[in-house]
């Protein structure tokens, strides 16, 4: 691996879930890259495939799902390695932090046992004293005192449990951390605390971080780059500041308009809901909800474009012009989404 090469290079990843009504295309051709010490924010509405992407990278998809594409972690394709090798990489190479900390610790195991199990699973030769020292160091870094080491999970609050989960993920010094909505279940003060912990991580250990969230405020604060996901595809990706100041995709723009701030006088929202991933709309999947939809948007899938500002975007508004058929730029006559349907 070259020194500046990405830690994680996902190429054209596709994930399907089997369901009784047909295959669900949860992730439909996603490519992203993360470098060491970089924080990539992955945003989008609920049900657009964010979490599936995170799990797909870890190889933690449920039974009955299928994967295609490439997930290169330091030039190793995680989709090709054996289960055994993948298991060895989970923890020391890639760690996952979950959304709801309350149920992620085994209620019958002491915190100590969670740590010793995790550490010895990857470094079986470590002495007990060393295991203990490293565990306490990781916990201490999260502000959990050593006196609580032998407590059970039910004796901690949600915020503390999430910090324990993070300590548990970081005790093996992973090169890539995937945080799947790590603060969604927590209150704002704890949220700020967790975010600063994650920022320290990047600063101190040069860890790459994939931060999955639907909170755009967090992205603005914590992320270097941002990828906006819609219906299983990346709609727009680029430098966080650029994307936020000059959103190129109508979906990003509408998403940003929906953020609530102190100046908000009326709530903005995007009419409709993310489409069914079993039978998504043809061509551009956003066109039924898009205020700027053109005729071409309902006919052809958009092509990825690199903009001068640096971001890549999949939207016909940004061309390429020579691929748009005659009259394709005419506004699309849309049936207005019925109010009843929105409710």
């Amino acid at each position: 691996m070259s020194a500046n090469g990405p830690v994680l290079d996902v190429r054209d990843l596709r994930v399907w879930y089997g369901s009784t009504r047909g295959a669900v295309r949860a992730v439909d051709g996603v490519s992203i890259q993360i470098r060491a010490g970089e924080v990539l924010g992955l945003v989008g509405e609920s049900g657009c495939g964010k979490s599936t992407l995170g799990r797909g990278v870890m190889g933690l998809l449920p039974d009955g799902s299928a994967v295609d594409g490439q997930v290169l972690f330091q030039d190793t394709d995680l989709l090709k390695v054996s289960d055994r090798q993948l298991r060895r990489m989970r923890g020391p190479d890639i760690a996952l932090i979950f959304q709801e900390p309350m149920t992620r610790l085994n209620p019958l195991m002491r915190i100590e046992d969670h740590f010793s199990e995790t550490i010895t699973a990857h470094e079986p030769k470590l002495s007990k004293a060393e295991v203990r020292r490293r565990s306490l160091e990781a916990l201490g870094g999260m502000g959990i005192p050593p006196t609580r080491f032998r407590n059970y999970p039910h004796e901690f609050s949600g915020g503390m449990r999430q910090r324990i989960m993070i300590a548990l993920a970081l005790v093996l010094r992973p090169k890539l951390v995937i945080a799947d909505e790590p603060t969604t279940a927590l209150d704002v003060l704890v949220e700020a605390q967790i975010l600063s912990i994650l920022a320290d991580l990047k600063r101190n250990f040069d860890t790459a971080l994939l931060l999955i969230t639907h909170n755009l405020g967090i992205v603005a604060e914590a992320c270097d780059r941002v990828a906006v996901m819609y219906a299983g595809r990346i709609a727009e990706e680029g430098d966080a500041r650029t994307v936020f100041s000059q959103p190129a995709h109508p979906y990003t723009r509408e998403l940003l308009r929906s953020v609530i701030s102190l100046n908000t006088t009326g709530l903005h929202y995007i009419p409709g809901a993310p489409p069914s991933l079993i039978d998504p709309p043809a061509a551009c999947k956003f066109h039924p909800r898009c205020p700027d939809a053109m005729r071409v948007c309902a006919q052809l899938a958009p092509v990825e474009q690199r903009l001068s500002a640096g971001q890549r975007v999949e939207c016909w508004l940004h061309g390429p012009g020579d691929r748009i058929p005659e009259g394709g730029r005419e506004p699309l006559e849309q049936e207005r989404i019925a109010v009843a349907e929105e409710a």
Partner: protein
Amino acid sequence: MAKPTTSLRTYALTRLALVLPMLWILLTLVFFMMRVAPGDPVTAALGGRLPEKELQERRHAAGYDKPLIVQYVDYLGDVARLNFGTTITDDRPVTDVIIENGSATLELTFWAMVVALSVGIGLGLVAGRLRDSGADVSIRMFGIVVYAMPAFFLGFLAQLLFGERLGWLPTSGRASPEVQFLLPTHTHLYLIDAIIYGDWATFKDVVLHLILPAATLGLIIAGVLIRLVRVNVLQTMKGDYIEAARARGIDEKSVVYRHAFKNALVPVVTVLGLQVALLMSGAVLTETTFNWPGIGFELVRYLNNRDYIAVQGIITFFALIVIFVSVLIDFVNAWIDPRVRY
């Protein structure tokens, strides 16, 4: 939030203190249910067989001419002194019945429980782990069949196959007559007595007699356990902490054994406590089928003879067993699951 784990001792003391009201309610229920039947116990058991004067004397001796409330207080006092009365029909202290026949039942139910736990939990874990495989389907079928079958029917089938057809195992009693005659009884548990006696042939005879009744009773309870354990394993395997453990790179074997199985067995312990009632009623049927001189066998006999004192004594004893087991189960639960102690 930051309270230290409540000690097991505090929990145990609290739990034990709760036994007294529970005991009182159960004893009261037993006493008044026995009194709901018309007439007095002496008339019921011996009426028509003895002259009225003698019946009168017996009633007086047993205190049945006293007011109900006095009888009730006497009963509670007797139970507190572990005196369960004397049977009317054969003049045996109920305590003797409990010791002699109860030990036979204890021996039977203990080994039945061993069978139930090993078969039930073992097969349940396999079925849960290998969901929808051929093994799972056959284990589930097996579980339903043994559970649906009444104890006496399963017992008859076993007697026919292993006793009549194959001639491998004895089908009746705790031991062969000559063994029963010669075996000195110290504990009334024949298996232990045989070991103390130190004779291999005796021991073998006792073991052979135990196999069919214990397996019959055990399999019926195993049927419930199989399904319960299987469902719990499936539920636990879907759990959030299982996924989290996998995400930390814990190998699948540890995930299954350390995280899934142990957690799946917590609810099983509770249900096991409730199964004791099933075990008791199952013991009555099994003992009758296999001519096993246990307490259930005696209970049926005394019921037929309308000996209320014997029945009341035995039922009281059953009630005490149920209380004892429920306390025991709570302790086991607290020991396994730290959340219970909280």
